[in-house]
C-alpha cells in the first residue's frame, strides 16, 4: 500500500531547476532515506511534501489525496509531520507548550468556547495537555516540561523537536538531517531513538541524512538525488556500490 507517491515532481526557482521530474513512492511502515550532495534539492523535496512550496509541475499524492493547493497547516493536519535541519522549536515557550501548539489542527473548540470557558473547551484543553504530558513521559523528557528549549543541550532539543512532530500523530514523519550537529555518542542515541519510534508508532519515516552511519543502519531503501534528479535508488548495499552515486559524491576519475 503506497502512502506517499511523488509523480514527475519539478520545482523551478525562477530558472533554477531545484527538483526535476522526480518519481518516488513510499509505502506504509517504511523507513527510507534521501541522500545527495549539498545543494542537490533534498530539503526542497521535503518543503514540497510539507506544502511549504507549491510544485511547478507534477503532483504529490498522500493517502490517495493530491496535496496540490493545500497550505502547510492543512498538510500537517492530514498526517505529515516534519523536523527541520536547523532546529526550529519555539525557543521562548516551554517544552510542554511547544507540544501543545502542535495540536492546533485538532483543538475542537471555537473562540466562543474559549472566552466563556465552556465545559467542552475545558475538557479539550485538559485532554490535549494530558496527551502531551503522556508523550513527554514516554520519551522520558517530562522533567523538562517547563524548561525553555533554548536551555536544553542540543541533542535534547533534537529529541524535543522529534517529539513535537510526533505529537500530531502523523502517518509520515519527515526528518531533515536529524543527526546534523550531534556528537558521535548522541548520534548512536539518535539511531536507537529513530528505530524505537519506527517500531512503536505506526508510521513511515523518510529522512534526509548525510551521516552514512545513520542512513546505513536505519533505512531499508535509499534514494539518491543530484541536481534535483533521482540518480539511484535501492538497498543500502546497492547504493554503496552504485557507480552513479560514487560519481556524484566523489566526481569522475576521468578529466
Amino acid at each position, binding site marked *: 500500500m503506497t502512502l506517499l507517491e511523488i509523480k514527475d515532481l519539478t520545482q523551478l526557482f525562477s530558472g533554477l531547476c531545484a527538483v526535476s521530474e522526480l518519481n518516488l513512492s513510499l509505502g506504509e511502515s517504511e523507513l527510507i532515506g534521501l541522500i545527495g550532495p549539498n545543494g542537490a534539492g533534498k530539503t526542497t523535496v521535503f518543503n514540497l511534501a510539507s*506544502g511549504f512550496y507549491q510544485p511547478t509541475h507534477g503532483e504529490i499524492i498522500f493517502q490517495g489525496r493530491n496535496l496540490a493547493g493545500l497550505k502547510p*497547516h492543512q498538510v500537517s493536519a492530514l498526517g505529515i509531520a*516534519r523536523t*527541520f535541519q536547523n532546529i526550529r*522549536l*519555539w525557543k*521562548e515557550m516551554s517544552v510542554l507548550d511547544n507540544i501543545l*501548539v502542535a495540536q*492546533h489542527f485538532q483543538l475542537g473548540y471555537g473562540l466562543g468556547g474559549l472566552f466563556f470557558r465552556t465545559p467542552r473547551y475545558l475538557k479539550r484543553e485538559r485532554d490535549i495537555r494530558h496527551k502531551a504530558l503522556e508523550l513527554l513521559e514516554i520519551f522520558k523528557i517530562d522533567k523538562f516540561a517547563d524548561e525553555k528549549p533554548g536551555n536544553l543541550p542540543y541533542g535534547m532539543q533534537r529529541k524535543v523537536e522529534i517529539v513535537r512532530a510526533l505529537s*500530531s500523530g502523523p502517518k509520515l514523519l519527515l526528518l531533515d538531517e536529524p543527526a546534523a550537529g550531534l556528537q558521535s555518542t548522541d548520534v548512536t542515541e539518535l539511531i536507537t531513538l529513530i528505530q524505537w519510534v519506527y517500531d512503536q508508532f505506526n508510521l513511515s519515516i523518510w529522512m534526509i541524512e548525510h551521516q552514512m552511519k545513520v542512513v546505513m543502519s536505519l533505512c531499508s531503501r535509499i534514494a539518491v538525488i543530484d541536481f534535483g534528479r533521482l540518480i539511484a535508488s535501492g538497498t543500502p548495499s546497492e547504493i554503496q556500490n552504485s557507480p552513479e552515486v560514487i560519481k556524484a559524491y566523489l566526481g569522475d576519475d576521468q578529466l
Partner: protein
Amino acid sequence: MKRFSVPILLVVLLTTLMGLAWFEVIDLYIQTIVLFMGINIITSTSLNLVNGNMGEFSCGHAGFIAVGAYVSSILSVALFTKSRAFGAPLLPPELAAYGFPLVLIIGGLAAALTGLLVALPSFRTRDDYLAIITIAANYIIISTIINIDTIGGARGFMGMKRVIFAMEKCAEIPWMILWVFIFMVISVIIIRRYMSSTYGKGVEAIRQDEVAAEIMSVNTNRIKLVTFMISSGLAGVAGGLYAHTVGYVNPKSFDLLKSTEALVMVYLGGMGSISGSIIAAVVFTLMLELLRPLQIIKWVAIPLLLIIIMQFRPEGIMGHRELSDIFPRLKKFYKFK
C-alpha cells in the same frame, strides 16, 4: 480562597472608587484621571496583543479607537438624546443605562470589522511595511471622519454628556466609573483567556517562528486576523469609553500622537506582558498629568523617555513576564486565568 481573592479585590476597588466619587471625596479632575487610567489599560493591553505577543508592528491603534469612539457616540446620541444632528431620541432616554454597554459593544464590533479590513491586505507584509500600512489606515480613518459633515467633520462631535445625564436620571451613581471598570476587567479577562489557551499560544508561536508554526498545523493567516480583530475591537471599546468620558470627540485627538501614546505604554510595560501593560498604563496616565504644565514640551519629554527605556531597559518594566513570574509567592494568594 485563592479563587476569590481577585474578584473580591476588584469589587472592593470598584466600590471604593464609586464611593469616593459619590461622596465627592475625589473631585471630577481626579475622577477623570482614574477613568483615563482604566481606558488606557484597555488601549495598552489590546495593542500589546498584536505588538507584544504576535510580534507585528501596528502603529495605527488610534484609528480603531476613533472608529469605536465615533460609532458608539453617534449611536448613543441618536438613540438616547435629543440632538441637532439626529433630532428626537429614537428610544426612551430612560433606557440609556441599559443600552450604553450594548452601544459600546457595537462600537467595538465596528472597530473589529475595520481591523479586519486593514488586516486582510496588510498581513501579506511584515515589519516596517505593516507599520506603514497601519499608519496609513489610521490617517484614512481620520480623513474619512473629517469629510463626513453630518457627524461634525473636523469640528468634532459632541452630546455624549447628555447620555450620561440620561443615565443619571435612572440612578444617580458615577456611571462612567462603573462602565470603564467593568469593560476594563472584561478586556483583560478576554486577553488573558485568549493568550492562556492553546489557540492563543499559537500567537506566541507565530512571533517566535512563523514558518514552524504553519508547518506544525497552526493556521497562521487566520490566527493573525483573529488576533488583530480582537485587538482592534477592544481598542474600539476603549474609544467609546473615552468619548463618553470626555463628552466630545474630535478627529484630531485620534491621530498618530494617540497611537504613539499606546505604543509608549506597550514598550514601557514590556512586550507581551499583560501586567506590564496595566502598570505602564497607570504610570503613563499619571505621568501625562504631571507633565501637563510643560504643555507641548511634554512631547519632547515622552519620546525622550521612550529612547531612555530602549537604551537601558529594552525589555520594558516587565519584559515578557507577568507579575506572578517575578514574585512567585503571589501565586499563593490569587489565581487569575
